[in-house]
């Protein structure tokens, strides 16, 4: 499937970062390629929003006031929300990386992150998701 097709499907991406400028700039970049983006300043705000249940991907900062990125990931898993999660951090530690892997994070990127690379990660996730969505249908019809 071509990129435009995936991006044009109107997938919603959630971005959680306490730094407004960082969050808004990533958001602007993703919107420029046709994705729908919803940003949250805290993990708590994200959890209380209905958007997350239908999001195609979640990009979250690791260090935030209140609940941090890993806490958010854990809470989503606890609730059974299987959205792919990409964790960003300026302070990468082996422990945090191991925990993210353990929770099944789709990506672990270090800040400052090139938005092009972030976009590639998101595209990969969306492509896999659409393939996954198709396969059960094909099995069901055969």
């Amino acid at each position, binding site marked *: 499937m071509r990129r435009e097709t995936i991006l044009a499907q109107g997938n919603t991406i959630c971005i959680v970062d306490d730094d407004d400028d960082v969050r*808004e700039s990533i958001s602007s970049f993703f919107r420029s390629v046709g994705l729908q983006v919803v940003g949250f300043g805290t993990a708590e705000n994200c959890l209380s929003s209905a958007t997350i249940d239908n999001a195609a991907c979640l990009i979250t900062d690791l260090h935030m006031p209140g609940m941090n990125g890993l806490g958010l990931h854990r809470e989503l898993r606890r609730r059974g929300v299987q959205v792919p999660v990409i964790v960003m951090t300026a302070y990468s530690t082996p422990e945090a990386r191991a925990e993210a892997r353990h929770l099944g994070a789709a990506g672990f990127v270090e800040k400052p992150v090139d938005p092009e690379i972030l976009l590639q990660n998101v595209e990969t996730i969306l492509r896999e998701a659409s393939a996954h969505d198709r396969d059960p249908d094909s099995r069901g019809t055969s």
Partner: protein
Amino acid sequence: MAFVASALIFAADALSPIDGAVAVLYTGVVLMVAPLGRKFIVAAGCISALLALTAFLWGHASDLIGGALLRFVVSLVAILITVLLSVRDRSARVSLAEQVRILEASHDTVIIRDSAGIVRYWNEGAERLHGWSRDEALGRHYAELFDESAPVEEIARSMREAGTWSGEVVRTRRDGARLILASRWLQRHDPEGNAIGIIEASADLTESRRAQAERLNLERRYSTIFNSAGFAALECDLSGALSLVLSAGSGDVAASLRADPALLAAAVERITIHNANPAALEMFDAQGAGDLIAAELLACSIPDVRQALETIFVVLVTGATQIETETRFITRSGRSIDAVLRLSVLPDGTDWSRVLLMAFDVTERNEARAKIERTSAELAHAGRVSVLGQLAASIAHEVNQPLAAIINYGKSGKRWLTRPSPDLGEVADCLDKIVSNANRAAEVVGRVRFLARKSAPQSDSVDLVVMVQDAIELLRREIHSAKATVRVEHSGPISMIDCDRVQVQQVIVNLLMNGLQAMRGIDGRREILVSLEDSGDMVAVVVSDTGAGIAGEPTQIFEPFFSTKSDGMGLGLSICRTIIEAQGGQIQASNNDGSGATVAFTLPRSNPQEGRHHRGLIS
């Protein structure tokens, strides 16, 4: 009886016509009373003489013819001789009886045996010591009464040649106990000079020997302990030193020693060391006790030594027998040793002539302690360096965030432009954001530059409220990761003050960092309250945290702890004080009533002495 005899003799003498020396018979009367004692003998003699005189006068008064008178005189002479002999015999008997009593009463044993070895005399001392009563012993051969171990040949030779022998014999008592006797033997002779046996007098040495042996054991035990002790032990004579110190005048030894600095050295010269154990020799690098000279070991020029010696002298004079103090020795090879000294005045000496000095080498302990102190200072320094590292990382992050946003907006703007239908509104928005984020980064860099720059003090007109908020903004990341909140409070407007902006900001950042560190690991509320007060002439900045508080005296946190060197941005509290005081203010620290500590500084509204001058130079 004597009276009857006297009367009969008198009657015969006076009344009978017997022409003979009847009065001689009075001698019998004298002998009869002789056992009664000397006074009776003399009295009987006198009475007999009077009676004889009476009878003579009665019978022969008319004719004092020669024959009767001669008989009378012979009788008187006979009576006199009898009296004298009786008196002498009496005193000889008395002294003999006394000698026998002495023999009996003696603690020593006195045994007399004949030439066949049969016991002929056995005193009470012999009864007590050997366990045989006199009745049992008399008439038996002495070898039946005890086993004896004695130098037989030596005794025989000595008795043969000199007639006496003295020495030690070991015997077994009747009950089997062993006796050591100091014995003196004397040959008995009959009037013809033939040996007829032996007199022996012996004293029991068993108890004194046992005591002696015990004393010897005690001495050996003491010397074993002394010599094998793992710590240095010396026997010293301090009597000369102390008599010198005491003779220096007033009863106040401490005052004497202070008054004459040479006195102490002179006193130490008089300390003699008798004995030193191997540990002491090793400690002082000496070959023998003779090498140890108190004046060399205790160099009065060293203040520590001087103080210890003064303490020792002063306390000894009060009558103390145990003293413990710490001092420093100089060994013979010139090493310096820290030692804990324990002095014990031994009871067998007089006037401190025997003092046991024990020394425990604590040099290593003291070095270890010093090392620990150094290490903890280094640790504190390392901690400070790591705070610096954290601050640097925090600042780097503060710069990176807007830079990342700029990149994102830049790439995003390009995308918006290159879309099939470019969205110029979004592009404009991206460009605006690029500018604002660049400004944000520039601000951070500006703040860092203020902190990092080591410029000469300069005076600006500063709004402390803004400065505090800037500092909080700078530490935003730190505050956040410490899970703390910082509140700023001020009632009413705060005047602008004249101060060195950079330096005062360094102080504020430092106080906030300290507060954050103090709250690390605190379970409860973590809040820093910065309150500002304007009292007209002065503005006070009070930084109060809810942390662990200050251990010990709060004011000492301003003492230079490791070094006064500032490592770029980091500043110790001692430098904070220097900065504040240089600008005419004051800084104080105290623990809060509840939790945490408060550090407050004041700055004058105007600082004319320096500020204007610097401003003039720079502008």
